[in-house]
């Protein structure tokens, strides 16, 4: 493996969540009745013409600026031509030689390493194709295919990286940071399972000492992988496979490969030797896209806080790096946290509770931070009750579970279950005295130096109070009670 350097470039397609499609007024909703979200324009009927969706351009420009790209004041649309049943016009309106934006970068941070800038070569706008549903187990033995054109014409941006990535881990970091950045712009659902974010990874091995152009290395494109984890697996597999091929003295074939989710192996789909000629030419139905530099500036001044800034802020506020990272990368979690600290001042405690107990319950119940039975204000109230001593940590966990189950507030759960922590010293002392009296042998053990015996006595007090006693106070009171008996003996 040391004889080769791994070279990876990634293309990401992101569906923009505009109200309507890129060139017509149809809705972009996912999961609707097949072909219900279509019109003559996105069906590619004779005589129809495209009209560009301004919202899509604004979202694309925001994305480009957030990825530090230079937005071209002049770009144009081109037709990319090929026949396939999911492509109604037999061409896709895309951008070829004058894309919307170029020359950007995404910064990744390898654990223990210095930050590294991965260059973004270009970002362009294009329309999505429809979907084929094959009637059969596999494409090979399908008896037919049904065409669903709901997705045809949904706006996409394609983000193309330079071949700057050197490992599957770097690819993962790049994609994670890219997704986090776009999530704060609110431009896409970014759901890889649903296809609103799709990745193709180009992998090649460069022999050490090779001086030629990276473009000339035979590269393999792993297409349509449905999760970042699988991108990583696919790359790992490809690196191993290609180095075996090379070490056996064979040649790498330039081709497109798919990833088998079950085995983590890639398999050949089509050879690129017989590459398509897409016959790109300028789209005559659309005038060039001219953006006022002043408008581009305006958009750039209204960008929200992005991961780099947010990460810095969180660390400056004393959050542990790991917690900060989780919040940055999950925009919903970060929004939840931002709201919760509005109501409860201990920011680190909020993060801590969110990322342990709240996260566990969210996962178990298949909720998310955005659709969570316990909102940020609810969590803040619970933490308040802990802070004023009404609840112990252990009790708070129980209350939180109750809140998830009943959708009630922390106070309502505490009241319904009679869970107030006993902070009245007089009342608690009565219980302590009873326990000491009932367990003379254990008390004697403690007196003779067996410290562990005290824990048993604390447990008995907690049991008698159904857990509502404050453990620290019980400790003090027990020692006090036993000590007093010492004096009387």
């Amino acid at each position, binding site marked *: 493996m040391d004889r080769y350097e791994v070279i990876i470039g990634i293309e990401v397609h992101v569906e923009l969540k505009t109200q309507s499609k890129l060139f017509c007024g149809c809705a972009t909703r996912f999961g609707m009745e097949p072909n219900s979200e279509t019109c003559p324009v996105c069906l590619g009927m*004779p005589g129809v*013409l495209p009209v560009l969706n301004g919202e899509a351009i604004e979202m694309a420009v925001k994305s480009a600026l957030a990825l530090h790209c230079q937005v071209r004041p002049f770009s144009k649309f081109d037709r990319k031509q090929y026949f396939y049943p999911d492509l109604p016009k037999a061409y896709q309106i895309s951008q070829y030689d004058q894309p919307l934006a170029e020359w950007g970068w995404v910064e990744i941070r390898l654990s223990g390493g210095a930050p590294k800038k991965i260059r973004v070569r270009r970002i362009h706008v294009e329309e999505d194709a429809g979907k084929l549903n094959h009637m059969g187990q596999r494409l090979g033995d399908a008896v037919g295919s049904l065409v669903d054109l709901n997705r045809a014409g949904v706006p996409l941006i394609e983000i193309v990286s330079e071949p700057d990535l050197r490992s599957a881990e770097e690819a993962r970091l790049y994609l994670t940071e890219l997704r986090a950045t776009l999530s704060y712009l609110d431009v896409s659902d970014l759901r890889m399972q649903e296809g609103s974010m799709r990745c193709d990874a180009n992998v090649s091995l460069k022999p050490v000492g090779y001086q030629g152009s990276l473009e000339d290395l035979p590269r393999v494109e792993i297409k349509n992988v449905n999760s970042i984890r699988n991108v990583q697996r696919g790359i790992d597999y490809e690196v191993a496979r290609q180095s075996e091929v090379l070490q056996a003295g064979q040649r790498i074939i330039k081709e497109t490969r798919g990833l088998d989710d079950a085995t983590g192996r890639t398999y050949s789909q089509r050879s690129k030797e017989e590459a398509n000629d897409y016959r790109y030419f300028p789209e005559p*139905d659309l*005038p060039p896209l001219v953006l006022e530099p002043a408008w581009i500036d305006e958009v750039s001044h209204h960008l929200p806080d992005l991961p780099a800034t947010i990460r810095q802020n969180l660390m400056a506020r004393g959050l542990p790096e790991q917690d900060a990272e989780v919040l940055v990368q999950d925009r919903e979690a970060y929004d939840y946290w931002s709201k919760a600290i509005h109501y409860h001042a201990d920011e680190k405690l909020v993060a801590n509770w969110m990322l342990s107990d709240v996260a566990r319950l969210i996962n178990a119940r298949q909720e998310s931070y955005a659709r969570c039975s316990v909102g940020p204000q609810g969590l803040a109230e619970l933490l308040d009750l802990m802070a004023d001593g009404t609840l112990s940590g252990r009790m708070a966990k129980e209350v939180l579970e109750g809140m998830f189950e009943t959708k009630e507030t922390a106070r309502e759960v505490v009241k319904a279950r009679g869970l107030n922590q006993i902070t009245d010293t007089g009342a608690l002392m009565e219980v302590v005295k009873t326990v000491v009296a009932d367990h003379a042998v254990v008390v004697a053990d403690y007196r003779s130096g067996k410290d562990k015996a005290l824990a048993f006595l604390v447990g008995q007090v907690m049991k008698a109070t159904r857990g509502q006693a404050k453990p620290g106070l019980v400790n003090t009171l027990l020692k006090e009670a036993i000590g007093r008996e010492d004096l009387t003996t």
Partner: protein
Amino acid sequence: MSEIWQCSASGLHAEFVDGALRAQDIVGAHLERIDAVDSQIGAFLYVDREGAMKTARMQDDWSKVDRIHHPLSGVPVALKDNLMTHTMPTTAGSKILAKFIAPYDATVVERLGAAGAIMVGKTNLDEFAMGSSTEHSAWQKTRNPWDLTRVPGGSSGGSAAAVASQMVPLALGSDTGGSIRQPAAYCGIVGMKPTYGRVSRYGLIAFASSLDQIGPLTRTVKDAELLYRIIQGHDPRDSTSLPDTADPFPMVGRPLRIGIPREYFTDGIAPGVRTSVEDALERLKMLGHQLVDISLPHTEYAIATYYLIAPAEASSNLARYDGVRYGLRQAGTDLLTMYETTRDQGFGDEVKRRILLGTHALSAGYYDAYYSTAQKVRTLIRRDFEEAFAEVDYIVTPTTPDQAFVFGERDEDPIRMYLGDIFTVTANLAGIPGLSMPIGVQNGLPVGLQWLAPAMHDLSLLSVARMLEMDPEEWIGPKGVKA
């Protein structure tokens, strides 16, 4: 005026407004005229008798105010069969769209409807508007009303023949390289191609998107203006449609400088055409206008440029006819066979020839030499006109180098057919308006004169052309059609 069907559109509308004629009588007379002569001409692919009569009956109940507010009420109109209509089939003259009913109306069809026009049917054309004789229709021949052994021109041959044989006073056509002006010249009527972007292309079955433009075919210039005013104007559904700005001040009523491009008056012009055009130029001089010798130096490259750009765009625009969603589908054992058989059986030879030309011109390795170079020459041609219009107000040329030819004459020689477009393609390449009007009859066939104006001067073009009309009310029609 002895017969209703001889009347101009503006005349019919005026009589309808006054109550002198009922819409039912107007439509009925035209349907009878169609019944009487279209078996000889073959202009119509579809006649919507019931629809037209129903609209007429409805309009007969309208008040005078309603009639005035609908400037085409009471007027029958025919549509070239590449304009989408949801009440009549739209086939583009191709088997691949046999019996196809559009799910929507073209913008121009909507505008005609809103203006009260009574749409009587769809007219024949060269398949997908590719041709200059209407011989390339998959459905039928259309004959020239002046001489039934000759072609009416094309591709809007059906619309031109329908208007010339007085089956309708108005028709719409489309013009990509001369497809309105050339058949207008061959049939002795007025045909206008507006400035690119003046008329919405939404619902026009695309041939070459950067060249296509819809326009009127009529017997008088006045009727052409009437129809043009209805169909023109910005359409948000067509991104290449121009904003609504007033036309520049019409350049009429003063001595004009009229450019005569020397590259258009070559030996290739038929003697009859030359005689009539020279007569017309004499009349312009007698009217006090100045004829100016000008040069459009890139004219010799126009045909080559046009026959790269138009087929390139056509190859792309026609790719959607793949048998998957609508139109003809020939089943195949697999996807590729289905595509190949459908397109092989659905398209005619001329369409296939142009798809091949265009596909080749856009191929990797040829794009720069062909398509890209053609676009550069197109810019030079546009600049030729800009420079010329800095010197002159209008340009006048023959519409075609020759008159209507007999069927089959150019079947075996597509290049000769293409060369016939020499005087008309430049207006499409430059995006400027052009109008052909009848200026004489030679050897029993009409001759057309072409006016060209700077972009946006559509209305002034329509005004200036009137000065050469013999008699704006009495059109000199063909003797060939007997009813």
